[in-house]
């Protein structure tokens, strides 16, 4: 296991390097002149020169690339022009709010989605199944920021049950603040996980070992949860990875709706204010989070399926 972990981490190095290269390319080459883009058309030549000097834009491209990589390695991502703070400390402050939202949303989404999928699979083509199908259709169609706005209108503005914005201070207050945005993101997740659980369970239900379990008189609950669901975990793990990433990207818009001080809010604010260093830092954080989630899912495969342990 330890050896496998090491090798997977080592495998991730070229991926991270490639991701950072893409970020570099996106930030330096696509937009034309970043100085002009950041300062606007009315900027004075001296301002443009100072900007280029500060971000090393007048150096040759290969040098900029190496400086960029060195900066990432030493946690030096420059300073925010808007907040006048190091980008790394801004990100360090924002990241826990985003991670917290993603994790709570995942717990709620899986907690609702898996039982729904079991319900649909055990009542195939009956009312609960149709209900779950309808739920997943709507769940796929409703944009998360819209659902967030609706929940905000009903539960915060009209009923006053939840806070309108912010991230909260202290554990319980933070949980209180994260609840509504997390439910928003969990909705889509539950729809996806529910549908996936149903499909994978139905596939497993046809297998011999399920029939054997039933034949030897195991209770239905034991058949479903001990025998069937455990064998349906592999596709569910893949689904969990996909939905974790979807939640991560969905968090950008949902943070904006609830005005949470997370990485998404920071990034979008930086884009509209053309705060160059923060845009770059925010993108790097999201890109690295994607790599980390994919790594975690790979490890989860091993935990879920002992057969993979032998191959690894």
């Amino acid at each position, binding site marked *: 296991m330890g050896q496998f972990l090491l090798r997977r981490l080592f495998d991730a190095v070229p991926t991270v390097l490639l991701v950072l290269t893409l970020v570099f390319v*996106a930030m330096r080459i696509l937009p034309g002149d970043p100085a002009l883009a950041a300062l606007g058309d009315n900027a004075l030549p001296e301002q443009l020169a100072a900007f280029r000097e500060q971000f090393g834009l007048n150096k040759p491209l290969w040098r900029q690339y190496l400086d960029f990589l060195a900066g990432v390695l030493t946690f030096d991502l420059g300073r925010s022009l808007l907040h006048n703070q190091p980008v790394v400390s801004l990100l360090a402050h924002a990241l826990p709010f985003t991670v917290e939202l993603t994790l709570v949303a995942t717990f709620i989404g899986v907690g609702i989605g898996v039982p729904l999928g079991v319900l649909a699979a055990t009542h195939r083509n009956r009312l609960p199944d149709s209900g779950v199908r309808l739920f997943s*259709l709507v769940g796929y169609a409703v944009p998360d*920021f*819209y659902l967030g*706005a609706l929940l905000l*209108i009903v539960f915060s503005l009209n009923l006053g049950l939840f806070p309108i914005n912010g991230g909260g201070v202290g554990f319980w207050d933070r949980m209180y603040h994260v609840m509504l945005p997390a439910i928003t993101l969990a909705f889509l997740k539950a729809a996806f996980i529910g549908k996936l659980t149903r499909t994978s369970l139905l596939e497993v239900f046809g297998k011999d070992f399920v029939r054997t379990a039933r034949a030897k008189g195991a209770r239905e609950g034991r058949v479903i949860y001990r025998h069937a669901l455990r064998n349906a975990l592999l596709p569910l793990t893949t689904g969990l990875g996909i939905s974790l990433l979807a939640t*991560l990207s969905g968090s950008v818009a949902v943070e904006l709706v609830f005005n949470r001080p997370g990485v998404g809010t920071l*990034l979008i604010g930086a884009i509209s204010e053309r705060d160059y260093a923060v845009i770059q830092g925010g993108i790097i954080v999201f890109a690295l989070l994607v790599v980390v989630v994919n790594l975690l899912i790979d490890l989860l495969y091993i935990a879920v399926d002992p057969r993979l342990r032998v191959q690894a």
Partner: protein
Amino acid sequence: MTLAADYTELIAPEPSRLVILRQVLLDRPSTMAAVAMIGVFVLIATFAPLLAPYDPLTQSYIKINRVPSAEHWLGTDQFGRDVLSRMIFGSRNSLIIGVLAPLLAAIIGTTLGVVAGFFGGVVDRIISRAVDLLISFPELLLAIIIAAALGGGFWNIVIVLAAAFVPNFARVARAQTMAVRAEPYVEAAVASGVTTWRIILRHIVPNIAAPIVVLMTLWTASAIRLEASLSFLGLGTQAPQPSWGNIIRDGLNNLFGSPWPVIGAGLAITSVVLAFNLLGDTIRDVLDPETSS
């Protein structure tokens, strides 16, 4: 004793895809409803200037942030613009981008996938590696990253969304090309000296078209939802041009005054995405029965 040949006229000919499509549509009322819904939105988008009660861009400082009334069914926004008219014109944006972005992604992605699958070797390794990496990123995140670099505006959204979808098309096109390339008729074409480009255009592309078309319809719904998301984030359709996403963005600033712009525009997005999802599932079942669930 009768010969099997006597029965041949009793065996129904393989139905054409059009016939299957008609049957499937009649079998599934939900698909019929979806087609009707899409039809309604296409009509609204086409006749937007006739249907909209006001100009979507005209501002009025004496009618700022009005609640819904007989005059303005969904109220007015912070610039006094009629929200219903903005929603009606916003449908154009959503539908056109919903068609254009998957189309562009299909063209670029199929080209990359066919080249990788047909020629193999180093080209394949480079393309596959890039596709594997990009596919591990959620489309929205990829779109946000590219939009952050490119900026908003109509053509930029099309490019951003297409770029985010390309890996999916490339992966499917590559796998399909490799399967078709092993078919005897391709071998026969190679053996009889048909040029490479002719083989690709005449034998490969037509035979991988079905799954690509399925993918295009499936991504239409996503394109519409992502355009709304980007516009909501301020990275998509730029003010003052109306889009369902930026109507919700504007409406969010005035939630205390009137929630109706947010509710209305969100309903429009949800119903169009729902309709295209349903239609996409049906088209997949008809054209590509193997991959359907």
